[in-house]
């Protein structure tokens, strides 16, 4: 058994933390895009489309993230699609993120008064123009705190990817613990690293909130 110094531990954890960051970013960006499309469908679509989006959201909100990952990772191979842990984690987290963001943003869009829709309609704007110039800019301001709050959940959620063998921060922590028999030290470092990823997100939220000052009372 080789000797691990604290620096070795930190170095190895940092290498793995890159994957945590990458997974979080990918899930958040892709989930945000899918979430935006679902939000449009949910806002503008017919009864059928709205119902489908609602089911989608309920499905992901009503089951543990871990189960969603298992179903993607073990389910897709059953229909002949072999999938790497990275792909499974990314796909699972993207779906999970999109469902939650759709729901968070829907609340923000609905918080924008009917008068804003009517005024912009009366000026001849179409739905996409109203969304782009009137509704989303205002909804975004309200959406910043819950969205950033949720991005922290995504970062912490990436830890479940360790269960399907994807080597991110938590999995690396487990592996190093198995080699060093120093769980307290290792997981202490792991926790600090999660904190260092998440804390700036909260600071960023505060900054963004200050940026758009003028919104509906």
């Amino acid at each position, binding site marked *: 058994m080789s000797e691990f110094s604290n620096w070795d531990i930190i170095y190895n954890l940092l290498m793995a933390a890159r994957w945590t960051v990458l997974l979080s970013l990918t899930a958040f960006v892709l989930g945000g895009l899918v979430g935006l499309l679902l939000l449009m469908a949910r806002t503008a679509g017919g009864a059928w489309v709205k119902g489908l989006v609602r089911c989608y959201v309920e499905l992901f909100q009503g089951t543990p993230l871990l189960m969603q990952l298992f179903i993607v990772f073990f389910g897709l191979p059953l229909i002949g699609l072999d999938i790497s842990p990275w792909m499974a984690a990314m796909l699972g987290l993207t779906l999970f993120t999109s469902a939650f963001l759709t729901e968070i943003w829907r609340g923000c869009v609905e918080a924008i008064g009917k008068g804003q829709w*009517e005024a*912009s309609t009366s*000026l*001849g704007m*179409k739905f996409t123009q109203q969304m782009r110039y009137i509704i989303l800019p*205002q909804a975004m*301001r309200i959406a910043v705190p819950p969205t950033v709050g949720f991005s922290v959940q995504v970062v912490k959620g990436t830890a479940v990817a360790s269960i399907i063998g994807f080597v991110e921060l938590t999995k690396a922590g487990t592996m190093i613990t198995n080699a060093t028999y120093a769980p307290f030290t290792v997981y202490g470092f792991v926790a600090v690293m999660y904190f260092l990823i998440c804390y700036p997100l909260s600071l960023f939220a505060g900054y963004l909130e200050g940026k758009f000052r*003028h919104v509906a009372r």
Partner: protein
Amino acid sequence: MSLVELHAIHKSFGELQVLKGINLSIDEGQVIALIGKSGSGKSTLLRTINGLEVIDDGAIIVDGKKISDRDADLLGLRLQVGMVFQQFNLFPHYTALENVMLSPQVVKKQSKADARKVAEEMLIKVGLADKMMHYPDQLSGGQQQRVAIARALAMKPKVLLCDEVTSALDPELVNEVLAVVRQLAEEGMTLVMVTHEMRFAREVCDKLVFMHQGRIHETGDPEEVFASPKTPELSSFVGGLA
């Protein structure tokens, strides 16, 4: 030929019949006051003229062209008919100038410079030359409503609809908004306004339309109608105001 003609307009919300066959023609340059009790259908009628409510039956004819309920027609209708709301409904995240510039740019695809020129002109017209860079929450109610009027005017509508544009204002701010409306009337703008300002209606409007239970109950010259209402309903409505 009238600028806008309404033929037998019907509109229901579920079981509730709100407009029960409205016939009205609006001539170019005419200033029409729409009065009536709460719930008589005044706002609903205005909203159908702007396409905010789709009618169940009847016809809206603008400049001799019948408006169908297809989206393209409704968009076209809104380009010709502007609307000002009781609650102003300014876009809070844009300055006064941006509020007025937005639609000409986005809907009419005007260049930024052109849109800005028109917007400045309109804001000057409503007396807000010094407030262009202010956000709505930095303006008084009267100023906000004047921005809303400028915003509607910047689209160069043929008709401007005003739904109780002074009802949400503190009494001391009512006059500055009415002055702008009066000026528009004098310049020949075609106006249809729902109002409770009877003195203003009398002085400024050419035609008074009294709505009662979803129908046009009485109409005529404001002076005459106020002096000698023909129906007991209008009589009691006018009496109730005095």
